[in-house]
Every structure is written in C-alpha cells, then in structure tokens.
C-alpha cells in the first residue's frame, strides 16, 4: 500500500489496541494484588496469589491434565489429517468438495451442540466422564484446524516429485517418508500446534463431558468463576496468559501468526 496512516487512523488504532489489551492487562494486574479480595495492586505488587496456586492442587492438576489431553488429541488429529489432506490435495475425484466440506464440518457446529451430543452419546455407550471420551471429542474438534494447515502444505507439493522418486525405485512408503513428509512438515507442525492450542483452550464442549476426575484447566477456571470471582482464579488466569504469551512469541518467530491464522506468509 502506498500511503501511510493518517492521524485519525492512528488514534483509532491506539484505542482499538487498548480495547484488545484491556481485559488481559486487567487480569494480569489484579493477579498481583496483596489484598484478599479483587482489587488493583495500588499498594504494591504481591506474589501471594501466585504462591496460593501452588497450594491449590486442583488447578495444577487441571493444568497438567489439559497439557496431556492437548498433546494426545493434537497428535491423533495430525496423524489422521495427513492421509486425508494428501488424498484431497493429490487427487481429482468425484465427491472431493463434499469430502472436504465434511471433514471441515465440525467448524460449523456450535460447541454447545457438540457438548450435548457427546454427553448423550458417551452416556449411551458408557464412556461418559472418561478420558477416552474427552480425547475423542477433542480430536474431532481440532481436526479441521490441523487438516486445513496440512492441506495448505500438501497442495503446494509438486506432484512430479513423487513420480521422480518412484522412477528412481522408491516404494510408495519410502516416497512418503523421504519426500512427501519432509516437504509438508511446515503444515504438519503448524497444524499440530494450532490443534494443541485449540484443545487446551476448549471450554464449552468440555464442560459437558468433563467429570471431577477429568477436568481441564478452562473448565476448572469456569467452575470456579461460577462460584466466585477471586484473586486466586485471577492469578491462575494470569499465569495462563504469561505462558500463552511465550507461546505466541515462539510461534510467531517459528511459523508466523499470520500463517497460522490467515494461511499465507512465510512458512
């Protein structure tokens, strides 16, 4: 674009950024309060509530649980997404559009509906409240994100590369392992990452299918807030924000947030 932003644009932009950051800054600020109730740390910063997290095993457990769940769901989703992406990228076949739409359909379904559906279904087949149920539900929900990014990489793959490998004597599996996989790796990695983050942050659906023994961190935070909004849960949220900020930074350096969300850019 040729022209720079005028003063109106910049003022708007500043206000917009403030709007975006306001709740996040609020959470981080209140987390440092030394009082026993919600207040801003006007009297100095205190780590009392962060320390309190360590004494509260429910939040720590939920955090670890969410990490594990995210890891497993993202990995399963990516492993299933890769062949599906290759199928759609490489071949022109009847029903290709429909198949793609079908695989991306969870994006169109409100998580509240998915939550009810999974609760009902899992109860019927007797896995309600189990780890297995959560993994399955999360995998389905994160699949479209993983699939989209792997697909972006797979579509950019030159089909003659596979033919070249075959002509040189490689088997189909070797061609996949030595040629295709290394070249779609950017899509695979970024797909995995966004799948993990989506699983970790997921709330609405998880509320329905979580149980006391299988509670994710967002659910734990939500249930606490339903009860009371106190500095403890604020500190937990602040800690989550800091971890996410580090993740944002690493992601932006490694893959580029634009690529992750918009799909174009460096990687």
């Amino acid at each position: 674009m040729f022209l720079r932003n005028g003063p109106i644009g910049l003022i708007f932009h500043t206000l917009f950024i403030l709007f975006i950051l306001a709740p996040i800054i609020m959470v981080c600020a209140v987390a440092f309060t030394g009082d026993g109730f919600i207040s801003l740390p006007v009297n100095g910063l205190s780590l009392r509530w962060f320390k309190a997290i360590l004494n509260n095993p429910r939040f720590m457990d939920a955090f670890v649980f969410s990490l594990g769940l995210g890891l497993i769901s993202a990995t399963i989703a990516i492993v299933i997404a890769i062949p599906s992406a290759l199928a759609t990228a490489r071949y022109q076949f009847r029903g290709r559009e429909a198949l793609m739409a079908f695989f991306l359909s969870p994006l169109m379904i409100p998580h509240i509906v998915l939550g009810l559906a999974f609760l009902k279904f899992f109860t019927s087949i007797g896995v309600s409240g189990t780890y297995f149920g959560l993994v399955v539900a999360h995998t389905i929900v994160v699949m479209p994100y993983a699939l989209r990014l792997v697909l972006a990489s797979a579509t950019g793959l030159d089909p003659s590369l596979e033919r070249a490998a075959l002509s040189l004597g490689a088997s189909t599996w070797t061609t996949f392992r030595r040629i295709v996989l290394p070249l779609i790796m950017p899509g695979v990695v970024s797909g995995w990452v966004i799948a993990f983050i989506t699983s970790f942050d997921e709330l609405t659906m998880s509320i329905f299918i979580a149980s006391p023994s299988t509670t994710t961190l967002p659910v734990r935070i939500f249930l606490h807030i339903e009860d009371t909004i106190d500095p403890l849960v604020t500190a937990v949220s602040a800690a989550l924000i800091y971890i996410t900020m580090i993740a944002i930074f690493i992601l932006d350096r490694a893959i580029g947030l634009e690529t992750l969300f918009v799909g174009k850019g460096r990687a």
Partner: protein
Amino acid sequence: MTAIKPTQAPWLLSTPALVLYATFLIAPLASVFLISFFNFEFYGGIQVSFSLNNYLEILTDSYYYEVFARTFGVALAVTLACVVLGTAEAYVLSRMRNPWKGLFLMVVLGPLLISVVVRTLGWALLFGSTGLISKALQALGLASGPVSLMYSNLGVGIALTHVMVPFMVIAVWASLQRINPSTEAAALSLGASQFTVIRRVIVPQVMPGILSGSIMVFAMSASAFATPAIVGGRRLKTVATAAYDEFLNTLNWPLGAALAMLLLVATIVVLISTNRLIEKRYGAVFN
C-alpha cells in the same frame, strides 16, 4: 502406485478420518437429534416417545422467544460492531510499515490463543461495580454512582465483540492482501480523494472478506457460551446457556437437545445461505 487405482486411493487414504467422523461425530449428532423428540417427566426421567412437544414448547413459550431474541439480537449487534472495528483495524494495519505491522498483528491475533474464559474474566473484572470502567465513568462525571455492566446485554455485547473481532480482522486482512495495490494508485492518478479511494476502490474489493467474516462472527456469537454465562449471569439467558441449564441442571435432556438442534439449524442455514450469496455476487469478480 499401480496397485491401487487412482479412483480408490483418495477414499482409502481418508478412511481413518471417515471412520472417526462416522463413529464420533455423526452418531452423537444423530442421537441428540433423536432425543430432541423424546419427552421428559420430572419424576420419571426421559421417556422414549416420539413427539414434537419440545419444539412446540420452545416456539410458543414467550420465555424462549425472549431467549432467542436476545441471542440473535446480541449476535447481530456484535457482528455490526465487529464489521466496523475489524475492517478499520485491518485496513490501518495493512498500511503500516514493518516491524509495527507484524507486532500489532501479533497483538491483535495473540488473544485468540488465550482461552475465552480468561478473556471473559478480564471483562468481568472491568465491568463490576468496583471495576475500572465504573471508576472511570464516575471520575469523568458521567455516572453518579457505581455502574455495573455485568449482567447486562450491553456488557455481554462488549465482551463478545472483544472475543470475535480478531476473526473479523483475519477475514478482512486476507481480503486486503489480495487487492492489487496498483488499483489504489490508478484511482489516485485519476483524481480520486483518499476517502473516495477507500469508498469506491477498496471497500468493494474487501466486501467478500467482510461478508465471510460477518457470517463467522454471527454464527459464533449466537452459539457462544462462556461469555454470556459469565457476563450475562443467571437471568440473561441465551440459547446456549439455556440449553446448558436444561441439560445439566434440570436434566431435561430432550428439551435441551431441542434447543441445541434449533441453534444448529439456524447456524447452518445462516452459514450456507450467506455463503451462497457471496458466491453468486462476488464469484464472477474474484474467481
């Protein structure tokens, strides 16, 4: 490569995903659809009988009318707010130099990686009667006493706008990236003012992005749960929180299922029909 026919290969490759989806997506949705036709007795639990009672109840009860009206009304308001704010911000961002552009893009898109419950907590803190907003309004003399935006439609709207606007920025940003910058230069060379350039050259080209962003924001706002639950509270129910109530509190699964089905159908209808419209209107221009 010659063992598997090219027509079979894609289906074979998609088998794991197809199995996963058939078992754990289609089946659950089907069972919710089914259960929405069952009846619920307060002391008897769920009765397996087929009737449209639940749907009739929802469509005739004024309570649910209010719930649906609030849900889609707020969603519409949020969508409009996001269109204005998101488009403007995307435009301003696109005209920045690096490193600012990359930095602010990170700031705008970053919150998407933070769980919605954390973002909404922030608004709850801001909205409370002892919150910053209340204090600021009192300090500016715009309010005589403590003002709480909690448990109000406005509060829910503001918080939802915050959650949704990054999606709008993404959609408009993607559209902006595709615009040929020379079209702007051409317009300027032909004597157009900056404002006219925006109005006559940029906005029309960005329309598809705005529209697809709007659909996304509307659908997600209508089915949002955490934000209306926390900021709206017990009294201001949306379809999502009402369904939650029925399912987990009243245990009237059939009714909850019916609510969910109506929400699903409404969402999909909006998504598909607006998508078709965009295709028809802009397909020839941008294909």
